């Protein structure tokens, strides 16, 4: 029972981790919460659907990278045109603009495709279960491996080797450093959005293939939970975001499993639903340790 819950927690956690990274990255570099990040998930998965079964009929192996690429570029475009200028005015303005973008993306998806649920079958090998003692689809193995792997790669090579990555980390660790970057600043910011978009799309497609049934709003609530995850870990620490992702994923599944054990609680199951848990956790963390569990940044100057 709880073994399964933990497995499920890992599956969801991997997704949260990948999405949460996007929030943390944008926040720590540009200092605002990218509310539209969750909806990029939906964009990614709908693009993938359109390219593969839903429209052009390309094989997934081609459709996925293309969709991911397009989503990344879209994210970069939105960032360059709307979010970065807003962020340079104030974090509130940026947050508001991001909310606007999220509204637009959701309605646009519904308008272009439909607001009804569409089937999205990964099909074949990915759908099969690994084994009895590991109640997990190969898709999940791929998700976990892909998520953790790409995070590790991003970490080891991009952030610690490439000049751009170092600059991003510099401006992440200290926003003032962003000013020193001078001309390359815009460029760095745009790349940050590109990365977050790519990861969002990957996560979205993983979710879509798992649920096999997608709606335009799928990004919103998942994105919100991922944001909570990033806050748990301390939104300004990238590693913390990943840890927070797995933490939240496992927590919500354990709680759900535990509640189902107690029939008395059945009528109140709503209070233990994923979203409820996420919201409560967010409230608690913000109250108890606003800067997150893993963040050790310093007091700011008055």
């Amino acid at each position, binding site marked *: 029972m709880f073994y399964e819950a933990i497995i499920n927690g890992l599956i969801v956690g991997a997704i949260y981790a990948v999405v949460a990274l996007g929030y943390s990255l944008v926040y720590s570099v540009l200092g605002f919460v990218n509310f539209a990040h969750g909806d990029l998930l939906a964009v990614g998965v709908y693009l993938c659907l359109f390219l593969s079964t839903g429209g052009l009929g390309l094989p997934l192996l081609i459709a996925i990278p293309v969709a991911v690429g397009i989503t990344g570029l879209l994210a970069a475009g939105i960032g360059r045109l709307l979010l970065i200028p807003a962020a340079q005015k104030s974090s509130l303005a940026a*947050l508001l603009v991001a909310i606007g973008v999220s509204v637009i993306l959701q309605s646009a998806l519904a308008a272009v495709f439909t607001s009804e649920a569409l089937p999205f079958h990964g099909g074949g090998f990915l759908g099969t279960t690994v084994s009895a003692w590991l109640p997990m689809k190969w898709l999940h193995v791929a998700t976990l491996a892909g998520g953790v792997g790409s995070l590790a790669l991003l970490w080891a090579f991009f952030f610690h080797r490439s000049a751009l990555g170092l600059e991003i980390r510099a401006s992440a660790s200290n926003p003032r450093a962003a000013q020193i970057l001078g001309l390359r600043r815009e460029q760095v910011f745009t790349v940050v959005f590109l990365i977050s978009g790519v990861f969002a799309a990957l996560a979205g497609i993983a979710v879509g293939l798992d649920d096999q049934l997608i709606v335009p709003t799928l990004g919103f609530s998942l994105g919100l939970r991922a944001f909570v995850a990033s806050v748990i870990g301390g939104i300004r620490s990238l590693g913390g975001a990943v840890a927070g992702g797995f933490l939240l994923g496992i927590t919500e599944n354990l709680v759900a499993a535990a509640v189902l054990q107690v029939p008395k609680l059945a009528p109140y199951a709503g209070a233990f639903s994923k979203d409820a848990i996420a919201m409560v956790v967010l409230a608690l963390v913000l109250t108890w340790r606003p800067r997150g569990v893993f963040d050790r940044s310093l007091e700011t100057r008055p």
Partner: protein
Amino acid sequence: MDFIVYAVTAAAIMTVLLVGQQLLLFDTGIFSLGGAAFFACGAYLSAVLSKNAGYPSFAAMLIAALAVTGIALFVGVLWLRTLRSDFFALATLALSLATVVVLRTVGPGGLTGMAGVPSFGTIVPPDVVPAPVQTMLLCLAVAILSIIAVQALRGQRIGAIAAAVRVDENVAATLGFRPLLVKLQIFLFSSFLAALAGAMQAHLLGVVEPRMASIDMIVLLLVGTILSGGKRAWGCAFGAMVVVLVPEVLQRVFVARAEPQWRAFLACQAAYGGVIIVMIFCGPWLQRFTGVRLRRA
């Protein structure tokens, strides 16, 4: 005709809500997404008080609004001190969404909410002035009162101090003003207005339901607040008219017809987001966030 009456009433109620939000966002620089939560709580409390506990609706509204202000006090003390502006926004967002879950789970009527909330009482017999018109006039009165109150507040010391706190909390503190106290008071006032509006809404529609605090409501509220602009309180009347009429009109034009036009409808909904963005970039009130070139107190 009855549509006009309804629209005016709804707009008046929305005005009461928006006036508080405007004061909060533009004068004190607190970005709260919790307005929807207080709105819903006010509605539910007033509904329960009047339907189950049998209070007259006016008393119910007032009690509900005051009780919710108590909740707001707790929230404010908890978060206004510790949280940066945008984190406060997200914490209050969490509050709203959590409210939906709570009402859905333990609220009367669960997911459905509660129908059959008694309507506004009538002051003069309904055969003289029809009840809906009386309700409309009442709501209008409350709306105008709140507009006047907020407009007046701006000219008072507290208004000036609030402006100072918004522009630079640290400076305000070095001048001996307690930023937390100022923010808290304004926050409470706006929450009171939100709860009052919710209560009025409940008695107008006769139905309360959890989605009164849902993300749709939050976005609608945000659009309304931003459209109201930061300058004058009566701007809220305009913002309210837009957020009440536009969805209604979209419904009638695109959806409630022989061949509903989904694309057009959804495109118009996307326009909400567009409004927010355009207003942030072109509206005169972005300056209020950045703190330069601001209105004279």
